[in-house]
């Protein structure tokens, strides 16, 4: 039961995070509910894969992004929004921000310990670790969400055709 609540709250907070970070980039108001649903589905799926199945963060992000991308094909037509308008905000909570700035931190710490070979190389290793994780997660997020576009070219590229919102 507590696991169920964990999954639910993960989805809920991811939905709030997606709407909030998305609102910086001025999405149409009609898109907000769908951004929330997609973000909740994707993030909860990643949470399940990582905690229940022990999948690594990179592969789990790929699956989550694929779910979000496929969902945006369906919802995009409904609210006449290009897929990116729905899936980019929904992906934002999964962007590896902490790994990204820790990459820079490890580099700075490497400079600090440059004269000590053991400590210095430890930080260098950490930099490669953080950099590799952040780039791979980001790459998988973009690729996972774009695969549905490649599979359904016609439909994916005519989301806003006949829009009644302009």
């Amino acid at each position, binding site marked *: 039961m507590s696991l169920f609540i964990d999954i639910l*709250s*993960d989805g809920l*907070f*991811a939905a*709030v*995070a*997606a*709407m*909030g*970070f*998305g*609102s*910086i*980039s*001025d*999405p*149409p108001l009609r*898109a907000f509910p769908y951004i929330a649903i997609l973000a909740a589905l994707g*993030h909860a799926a990643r949470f399940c894969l990582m905690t229940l199945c022990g999948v690594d963060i990179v592969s789990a992000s790929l699956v989550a992004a694929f779910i979000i991308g496929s969902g945006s094909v369906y919802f995009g037509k409904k609210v*006449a*929004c*290009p897929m*990116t*308008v729905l899936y*980019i*905000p929904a*992906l*934002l*909570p999964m*962007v590896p*921000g*902490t790994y*990204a*700035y*820790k990459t*820079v*931190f*490890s580099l*700075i*710490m490497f400079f600090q310990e440059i004269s000590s070979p053991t400590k210095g190389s430890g*930080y260098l290793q*950490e930099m490669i670790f953080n950099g590799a994780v952040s780039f791979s997660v*980001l*790459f998988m*997020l*973009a*690729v996972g*969400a*774009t695969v549905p576009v490649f599979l359904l070219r016609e439909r994916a*590229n*005519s*989301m*806003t*055709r*006949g*829009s009644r*919102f*302009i």
Partner: protein
Amino acid sequence: MNTMTDADMTGGQVREITDFIAKYLSYMLGAGVHTSRVVRNSKRIGEALGVDVSVHTSQKTATLTVKEKGGTHMDTMVVDIPAFPISFEWNADLSALSWAAHDKAMTLDEIRAKFDSLVSKPGMNPVFVLFMVSLANASFCRLFGGDMLAMLVTFTATMIGFFTRQHLTKKKVNHYIVFIVSAFVASICASSSLALGIDTAEIALATSVLYLVPGVPLINGLIDITDGHIQIGISRLVNAFMLIVCIAIGMSLTLILVKDSLL
């Protein structure tokens, strides 16, 4: 199809179409739409007006050539890409405009009038955005395992930090400086959680700057790369990376002040 295609166009008409499409695509690129969509939409509008459009894009300028279908008139133009804030609303509206132009055979004047009305729609209320971003960052703190108090600190710190960012951006301060200062302000506010002795203070501190991470340009850059627009994709990634370095600099100032160590 448009009546313009029936009779031969004059050079002046081609020039007018070029002017409009140049403006259209520079607005879309400036508002952070990924490249392949901008190119596709511009070609679609060109199709509706009876011209072939080819576009070359780079980070700060775009070049386009417009050629009359089956005729001899053509026009080439280099256009500066204005730096608008990212707008998904424009992305959706201007894409819909390209389809409307294509399906309803609108004339150039009609398309231009519609375009002007779409881009002059007011954006989202800044106070609402401020509240939403703070709420989002607090939820983010929770996702990383922070408790209620840590969430509260993150909420407040984000609010102050994002307000700083909005204010400095309005004053047209260089955006690298905006990012360094906002990251510093948000993290120094969040470091109050260390002094307050909150259990998950570290998490509050670590998540307080995440509202600054340029997620949209990062994802856009990779979408461009997967679409084959590799040069502009890399430019976007490099741009976003510079901003991440700025976030790290701002935050490291706080960490050196309060913790004396970065990691």
